[in-house]
């Protein structure tokens, strides 16, 4: 087994062989999920807690289904509603949960690095379900699986990531993963939505969709995160749609067989035209959702194997 991590905190820590192993295992879970029984037992007896300090419907549901299909006992905690409001610190919350002996902790938090901090304080495996604008590793992995299945490979592809890069953890994890797997990554968006010195990450930066989309194999659109904006990053939604929204005209610059991706939830008519999102020949957006469950099953399966091995090792030493 190549996968040696205790936690899944980010793509940054992963080796390409570890990424490949997760994706290979996820492929088998795609098959399982399409079968009638849809059930495994590799997480049987383990407790999975989903702690979401930020609203999420899709990611939380995906993790929940993934855990349940593999036999884990899954609990969801909506943290905005609970003790955080009472002034409890993140560490206290973590220690309280830790005392309940969870095995897998799935965490989303509005601040970058918060999940890393939490992982230092607990005994179980922690999965980052998105921290601030830092990383969202399972999203990048599910995107990778979607690309690999659609294109037959995950290397030497031209991939454009378009939109609000600055506020996007999805973009960070994706550009790290796609870079590690030796693809050419282009970032397209207005300069006010680009992180500082992003060009030093081994990516090409474009401010024009025509040039940026030329001959790409994959078009990855990002949500324009209006709730993250202090205001004033772009003049208006309609100007943004005109210049950076994906429509048939702009997509025509990409390769004829280019696929269109979006992490959801979509703002139709802001960053993507509705008919393209629904075009079954181009859009793989529904596949991404399906791959999400499989990838999360694979990630939790691998982490649980390491967790069990570590515990067995600790027992042997005792």
């Amino acid at each position, binding site marked *: 087994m190549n996968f040696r991590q205790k936690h899944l905190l980010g793509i*940054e820590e992963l080796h390409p062989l570890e990424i490949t192993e997760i994706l290979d295992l996820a492929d088998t879970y795609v098959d399982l999920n399409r079968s009638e029984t849809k059930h495994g037992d590799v997480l049987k007896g383990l407790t999975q807690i989903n702690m979401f300090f930020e609203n999420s419907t899709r990611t939380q549901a995906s993790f929940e289904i993934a855990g349940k299909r593999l036999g884990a006992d899954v609990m969801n905690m909506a943290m905005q509603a609970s003790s955080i409001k009472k002034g409890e*610190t*993140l*560490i206290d919350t973590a220690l309280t949960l830790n005392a309940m002996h969870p095995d897998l902790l799935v965490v989303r*938090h509005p*601040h*970058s*690095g*918060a999940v*890393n*901090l939490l992982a230092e304080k607990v005994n179980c495996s922690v999965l980052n379900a998105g*921290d*601030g*604008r*830092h*990383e969202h590793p399972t999203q990048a992995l599910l995107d990778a699986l979607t690309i690999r299945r659609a294109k037959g490979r995950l290397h030497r592809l031209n991939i454009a990531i378009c939109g609000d890069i600055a506020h996007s*953890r999805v973009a*960070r994890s994706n550009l790290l993963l796609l870079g590690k797997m030796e693809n050419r990554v282009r970032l397209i968006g207005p300069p006010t939505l680009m*992180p*500082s*010195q*992003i060009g*030093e*990450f081994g990516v090409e930066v474009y401010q024009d969709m025509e040039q940026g989309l030329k001959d790409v194999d994959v078009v990855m659109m990002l949500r324009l995160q209006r709730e993250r904006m*202090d205001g004033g990053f772009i003049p208006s939604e309609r100007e943004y749609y005109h210049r950076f929204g994906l429509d048939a005209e702009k997509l025509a610059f990409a390769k004829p067989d280019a696929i269109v991706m979006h992490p959801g939830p979509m703002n139709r008519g802001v960053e993507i035209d509705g008919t393209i999102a629904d075009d079954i020949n181009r859009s793989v957006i529904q596949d991404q959702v399906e791959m999400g469950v499989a990838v999360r099953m694979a990630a939790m399966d691998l982490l649980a194997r390491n967790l069990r091995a570590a515990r067995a090792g600790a027992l042997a030493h005792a």
Partner: protein
Amino acid sequence: MTGTLFTNARLIDPEAGTDTIGALRVTGGRIAEILAGPADATGDTVIDCGGKCLAPGIVDLGVKICEPGERHKESFRSAGRAAAAGGVTTMITRPDTLPTIDSPEQLEFVSRRASEAAPVRIHPMAALTKGREGREMVEIGFLLDAGAIAFTDADSVVADTKVFTRCLTYARSLGALVIAHPQEPILSKGTAATSGKFASLKGIPAVSPMAERLGLERDMALVEMTGARYHADALSTAAALPALERAKAAGLDVTAGVDIHHLTLNVLDIGDYRTFFKIKPPLRDEDDRLAMVEAVASGLIDIISSMHTPQDEESKRLPFEEAASGAVGLETLLPAALRLYHAGALTLPQLFRAMALNPAKRLGLPTGRLAAGAPADLVLFDPDAPVVLDRWTLNSKSKNTPFDGARLQGKVLKTYVGGSEVYAA
């Protein structure tokens, strides 16, 4: 003559710029004479320094002591012990406490507590505006009478240029020194790191180093306009230095400081969101660090200070963006500064010019010198002794040092204030 004779000492004289073996006699709490050759010790108590360094005690400009308000973080007693252990013989304290030190009554409280509880000298600064809110100026005249040594809103910028101009004009009429934190407050609002590759990778909201230059350029224009005495508390970026250079060349009454962390650490030290490295201004790129070291060597930057800012574990054990800023530094200032000496970047007289002589001169204090007649505020230290820093051994109540586990060279052996020993290792 009866007094104390320090023999066989490596005398670090920042005024003369010399580093020579000799002896120093102290009588009546003052330095009586400096002797180059063998000294006649008749009647004196002799302290053999064993060839170790004897330098003027450090004058640390900008120490935060959390009294009143947050004594659990740092008290005058604990800060005083930390200062003595760090070779700091004078602390210039900040007014950014709870509540702010912005009235003569509060300043008197601080002075009283300081003289009761701390073994080193303490001169308090007062706020420049009430509550450090940047709206109304404090009673600068009364506060001067009560002993305020300078006026500063600490890390809070007086954003309203009209208010700041009036503060500078009024302070000028009384000859008061204004200390400011050069920063463009709108650009830096809500940020926790310096923009660049590291902050982009870690997803930390970041501010361009240009915000410091903007702040300093504004302040220099206002100093030119008002003729005020001005000190920039902690510069950290290469981009800000030309403005400082121009102001000094134009003869404005301007000085500038840098804190020890910006001379010894850079943004990459933050690593995996380590909040002990979250300070204000934020850690910069290596190029900026090198520029600051060079500016200290050339004398463009006048003062090195610790910017001692105690924070308890609770305010640091948070996600990076939410964690409090600041680091303790009284006890690590000297060993950290000695990194620059061992790296060949600065000589010992240059270091003590920035840590003792210049702050004393700027504040009108008689200390900071190895000269006959100056108060015998001295630090005896071994510049080569290796230390692996353990934060739990610090005297400060708060242990938030970025140097925990760091290998440092340099150990304070003894500290004297007015000729009396206040610390012995």
